[in-house]
């Protein structure tokens, strides 16, 4: 049981292709959280509503960067939009991505117009940029606010199917490859959407706590509690779907199970069975369950939620890894496996991945310097003063 075709020895889709669905997933997830407030009226999520929208925007800016780094001729990437091809799944992604980017930019414009105006009235380069973004119209009153709110709600509503489409499409890229039994399943699209939402909520919780801690802000309990519950619900669905997928193949014992079983037992045992499911799914499930069902002291509940969110971030990354890399370890002959271990300093190595993944956070910080993302944040000292 060890035969690979000559062109399968090297794993060509590397860390960058793992990072691409991961970052895209964060976009979709963060946008869904912002829509929960803007469209579905979950008012307890207000403290993170703009933060989640801005997060979706910055992650979206960098979603395709790993792909461009992966390409030998990145400038040819635009050919998929110049000469689109209905037999190419990636061609559709170019259009969906662009549409979604325009939508998110518009949404930010309408949601944050009042803040841009406030900033534009100041001085300096940032004020000038804000004035340009507002087309030098700083007029604001009850009527414009109402108009902005209506359009923002409409866009947020339109954004939900688009976010699902965007990330479902990433799942489609893998799920529609019928030659690869590890990828080819219609469940892939749904799994990707739900894992995207999980990673998006996770990164918001993770980041919200870190930012609040660094700035000495009081964490909004209702908001965190609500996000923790949403996270719990979505992670249950996501993990259940992931397990159902593998269970259905295992139970049916189709011919591909011969090789997939071995893939799971031999090649992906650590990253898939031990890490993705036993560790980074089971523990957050229990932790979030405890936080949701048992009345704990604030600090403990917060710590538990933060740890679970951080672990789920890793879970989704592991899931992307196991999908992308796992599918390539498997020979199309269904009779053998190749191996892959990422390098640290190579072109598509871990260092570049870390740099790419850090960049959205830097842009987010710059964004926050121009327009505060947590306008209602309460310093901890204020809380003690209240008492």
């Amino acid at each position: 049981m060890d035969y690979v075709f000559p062109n399968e020895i090297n794993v060509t889709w590397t860390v960058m292709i793992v990072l691409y669905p991961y970052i895209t997933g964060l976009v979709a997830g963060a946008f869904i959280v912002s829509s929960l407030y803007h469209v579905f009226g979950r008012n307890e999520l207000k403290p993170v509503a703009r933060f989640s929208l801005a997060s979706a925007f910055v992650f979206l800016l960098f979603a395709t960067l790993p792909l461009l780094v992966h390409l030998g001729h990145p400038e040819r990437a635009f050919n998929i939009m110049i000469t689109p091809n209905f037999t190419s799944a990636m061609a559709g992604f170019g259009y969906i991505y662009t549409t979604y980017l325009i939508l998110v930019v518009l949404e930010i414009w309408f949601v944050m117009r009042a803040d841009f105006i406030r900033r534009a009235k100041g001085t300096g380069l940032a004020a000038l940029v804000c004035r340009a973004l507002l087309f030098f119209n700083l007029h604001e009153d009850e009527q414009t606010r109402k108009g902005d709110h209506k359009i923002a709600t409409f866009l947020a509503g339109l954004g939900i199917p688009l976010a699902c489409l965007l990330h479902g499409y990433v799942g489609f890229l893998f799920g529609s490859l019928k030659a690869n039994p590890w990828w080819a399943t219609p469940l892939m699209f749904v799994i990707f959407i739900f894992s995207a939402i999980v990673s998006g909520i996770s990164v918001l919780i993770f980041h919200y706590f870190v930012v609040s801690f660094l700035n000495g802000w009081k964490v909004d309990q209702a908001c965190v509690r609500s996000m923790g519950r949403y996270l719990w619900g979505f992670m249950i669905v996501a993990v259940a779907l992931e397990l159902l997928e593998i269970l259905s193949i295992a139970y049916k014992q189709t011919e591909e199970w011969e090789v997939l079983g071995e893939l799971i037992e031999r090649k992906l045992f650590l990253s898939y069975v031990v890490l993705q499911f036993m560790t980074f799914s089971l523990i957050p499930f229990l932790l979030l369950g405890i936080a949701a069902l048992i009345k704990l002291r604030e600090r403990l509940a917060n710590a538990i939620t933060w740890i679970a969110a951080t672990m789920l971030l890793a879970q989704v990354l592991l899931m992307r890894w196991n999908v992308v890399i796992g599918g390539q370890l498997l020979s199309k002959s269904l009779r053998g496996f190749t191996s892959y271990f990422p390098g640290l300093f190579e072109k598509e190595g871990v260092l570049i991945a870390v740099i790419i993944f850090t960049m959205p956070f830097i842009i987010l910080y710059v964004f926050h310097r121009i327009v505060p993302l947590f306008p209602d944040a309460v310093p901890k000292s204020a809380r003690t003063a209240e008492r």
Partner: protein
Amino acid sequence: MNRTSRAFLFFAAALAALIAAFAAGWDHDTGDARSTAGMAIVALLVVTAIVLVAVGVNAVLAGRDAPRAPAGPRASYRHTVPLFLVVGVTVTAALTARSFAVPSGFGAHGYFRGTAPTEARDFPLRHAGKERCAECHEDELNLHDKDAHAKVPCETCHGPGAQHADASGDAPILVPRAKEDCLVCHRILDARPGAFPQISLQDHYRFVGVKDDNVQCIQCHSPHEPLYMDRDLRTARLHPLIHRCRDCHIGRTDETLSRPEAHPAIFECSYCHKTIVADAAARKHRKVSCTTCHIFFRDSDFAGRIIRDADPRFCLLCHRKAAFRSDTAAPGIDWPAHLKDVGKEGLKNARCIDCHQDRIHTIAPRSRP
């Protein structure tokens, strides 16, 4: 205009959108649905119709209700005009720019650049071909054509040579000398067909007693004549297919003379050459497998050519005296000095096996040269 009449206006518009959708969607001559773009327009019109109906129904229901409480200030959208204008202009500009960027001929034969074949044809030729090489390098080509690399074109190793040939040799050409260049084809890989010669450097160096890892392949093997065959490969004897362990068993396997218990006898030389194999097993070269010297070249799925190599340089591939070879390996021979020692100095056709046949195996009557 009151609410009811506005509602009917919406219903009329929805109906118009639906009719337009039908008109746009179906080709009346054939009755078939039109292109994908046409269907996208249909979908858009249908969605528009649904939205218009919803707004109309809402207006009717609102008209039936009791007069509503004042809803506060009306929403204003005037400030959004520049934004949507910019977005609209940008998208239109991008789509227009795209239409200019589409290569001419795209779509002529489906989703391809129709001009691609002519473009490709008009590229200047970069490869010259073996015949051009032979114009100046006939000697190398003669050696090359009779040895193991006969089927490998010159430019596989030397790179495209049209420029070099056009400039009568003044333009540089690639001359690969590093062992990595040879290993591009000959490195041992699970994915290569077992019959293809593959080298594990470590094993090979141990076998021939090379003690310095920096030794290059070309220090022993001339790239044009890597195995020093004493006759042309094409005139070599046809032989039924020899299976190697690696043909079936992927991964590193020891190619030994003896087969494992209960394995079908499909690759053993002794199956046909029983006497010779038994004889060889009692002599000095017993640890050397038959195919080390009797190199097999696969011709088809059924047969190949087998070389019985007796060129002294072939023996020297293992027995050459060199500083980079250890003393404990096969005895090292300084060929010219050796000829002098045995009183055959200057004898061009001298072969090792003329004197040392007894160290290999006796020649059986069947295997005439």
